[in-house]
Every structure is written in C-alpha cells, then in structure tokens.
C-alpha cells in the first residue's frame, strides 16, 4: 500500500501511516516516549524536547512529535544518551521557574511531577533561577500561576485550534518568555476569552487551575481535550 510505511523502532518492525509522526507510530506500537507539550489532535510544536529519539543516519537526536515517519527509518527510543538528555531537560524545566509541589494544586496529578519521577529525576544539578513571577487571579473561574508554567503552549494551541478564541500566546522570548492573554492584560479582562476552560484541562501542571482548589485538589482531563481536538479533524500528526 502506498500510504503505509515500514520502519524499525528499537529493533522491531512497525507499520505506520505515511505522514504520521514518529511519536504516534511508536506509541501505537506500545513504546514509551516521554513528552509534556504533546496533545494528540493539536499541532505538534516540539517545545518540551523530551520526546527526543535517535534516528539512524542523523547525528543529532530528533523530536519524535515533529518528525514524520519515512519508509525504512531506523529509530531507537531508549539509549543511555537519550536518558541523560531527557533527565537534563527535566532538570532545566524544574530549575527555570518556581515549582513547589508541596503547595501546588496539582500535586499528585501533575504531568511534570509524574514525568520527573518516571525519568528518575530526584534533584536538579542546575541552580534554581527563582524568578519573581506574578499570579493572575483576575478571572472569575480560573487562576494562572506563572511560577508553575513550563511554556509547553498546550493552552495556546487548544485555545486557537479547538476553541478558536486565540486568547493565549507567548510573549517576549528566551528566558523572559511568558504566557500572555491578549495584550498581556489581566485574564479576567480578556475580551476574547470564552471561559470554556479547555486551556485549564490541557495544562500539564498547576499553572492553569480552577479557582478555589486547594493543594492536591486539581485534576485535569487532558484526554477530553484530546478527544475534542481529534473529533474536529485536528492535525493528523
């Protein structure tokens, strides 16, 4: 079949649809590839860099979510080098902002926390930056805590691609990047926000949460967002 490609993942032959991402193909074959910014149905952006895999013939690791499968590709998802890279990325994510699990609404059901423990990250080799960041509690239903944001842009994409409100985007760049609603005004004053809450459900950490939740009370339903995105004919990747 022309739109079926064969590739090798960790020594196993796998069939995949042409145009599919390496991440989807590998996960369909039962492989574990860590990721934080990926939500099935939303456009992959390769923001978190956790899904790096090795492709034979390419000297550098490639993000599995934005790499499309090709016939005859040979991929390894597990190696000492990849594990070290992933752990390092995890540590950088943790040291970038103020992730304090003990006082976080998402403690116990946080994708960042889960991923850190899954990857065996117990501490950070890098010094914490401790940036001074604001908390936006102006919205009647939700809270945005920049301290817990990992800039995965899930909220940005779900708002643009599923809800179509385009309330969120990332402002500035580099280490000063921050999530911003419209013209970086208060979220509660946003004219575009429809208060649908999809960004909150898509958020992997406690950065976006329902107002009034206490520590450990916030659980997210990212699968529902993913179902909505795919049902609306989201991107195939």
């Amino acid at each position: 079949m022309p739109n079926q490609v064969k590739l090798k993942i960790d020594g196993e032959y796998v069939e995949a649809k042409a145009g599919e991402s390496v991440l989807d193909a590998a996960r369909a074959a039962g492989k574990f590839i860590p990721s934080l910014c990926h939500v099935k149905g939303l456009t992959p952006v390769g923001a978190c860099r956790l899904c790096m895999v090795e492709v034979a013939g390419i000297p550098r690791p490639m993000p599995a979510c934005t790499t499309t499968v090709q016939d005859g590709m040979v991929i390894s998802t597990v190696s000492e080098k990849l594990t070290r890279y992933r752990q390092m990325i995890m540590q950088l994510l943790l040291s970038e902002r103020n992730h304090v699990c003990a006082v976080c609404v998402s403690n116990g059901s946080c994708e960042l926390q889960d991923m850190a423990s899954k990857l065996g990250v117990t501490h950070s080799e890098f010094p914490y930056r401790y940036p001074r960041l604001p908390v936006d509690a102006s919205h009647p239903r939700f809270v945005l805590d920049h301290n817990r944001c990992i800039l995965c842009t899930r909220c940005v994409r779900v708002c643009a691609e599923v809800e179509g409100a385009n309330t969120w985007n990332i402002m500035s760049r580099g280490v000063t990047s921050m999530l911003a609603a419209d013209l970086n005004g208060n979220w509660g004053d946003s004219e575009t926000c429809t208060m649908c809450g999809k960004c909150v459900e898509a958020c992997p950490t406690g950065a976006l949460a329902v107002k009034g939740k206490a520590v450990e009370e916030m659980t997210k339903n990212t699968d529902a967002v993913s179902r909505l995105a795919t049902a609306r004919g989201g991107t195939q990747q």
Partner: protein
Amino acid sequence: MLDTLARPQTELEDQSFIDGVITEFGSKPGGLLSILERIQERNRHKYLSPEVLKFVSSRTGVPLSRVYSVATFYSFFNLEPQGKHTVCICRGTACHARGSRDLLNNAKLMLGLHNQEDGGADKLSLTTPDKEFTVRTVACFGQCALAPVVEVDRKIYGRVNEREMRKVIDRVDSRGKVP
C-alpha cells in the same frame, strides 16, 4: 493634556495609513512584520501603542494575542514611546571585553536614567521623561573590530571612550540650547 485626552483611539489619519499598509502587505505570509514596521516608522515616537495593535488585529483578522506575541518577540518593535535621539550601546562579547558596561553606565548617569530592575544581560531600553533620549542595548552590531561600538542616531561610532561618547551625546542634545 488636551492632546492625550483627545486621543483615546487611533487617529483617523493614522487609520487610513494603516489600512493602506494592510492592503499592501496583508495577503503575504509574514506580512504582519512589514505592517508593524511601517506603522512604527511613521509614528512620531517610533512605537506601537496598544490602540494601534488592536486596530491592526481587527483589520487583519490576526488574533490580538498573536500580534502582541510578534511585537514582543522582535526587539526591533517598541511598545513604549521612544526618545528623539537614540543611543544604542553594543553589549556583545567583544564590546563587553572592551568596557561597554562602563559606557552604558555612563550614558545612563549622564542622561539621568535608572534601571527599574536589573535584568542582567537582557536587552534594555530606557527613555528620559522628556522623551529626548532613549538608551538601548543591542547584542552585536557586527562591528567587533571597532569595539566598543556605540550608535547615536543611526550613526556608528567605533573605539569609543567615555569622553567621546559624552561629546557625541552633547552634540545632538538640543535641550537648554538656543536654536
């Protein structure tokens, strides 16, 4: 006072200019950059006000958050009114090694500017309250052989020392001088 009160929204004249620019660039990919560039170039204080960003967003159909994201990503775009004269000090490695930090501190001292917060190596843009001078930093002019480099009103001065920089700034400074 009246001037600021009478201008809550984009002026009509500006609006027609912006509409013209949008019809020129609107359909091209990356047209937003050209649109914002032209608008900023025409502005008296060389900046993009929130009203202008909102107007561009409503006319182009590009979401406001995207327009803001683009305007904040590129250091070329100013979201604050800029001074009449611009002093741009290179903070690249070569210039830093040849003492551009002292030049920057001197320029700030001379023009009475303070850092609201010390952002470290990040880009900096400070404007005097009378909107005469803006001091900004840039990562590299590509003139490392001439380090340290200072640009005053789009003219590049190489191998600058403190005294020379003060002289150049004094020369363009029209404050307190009889025309």
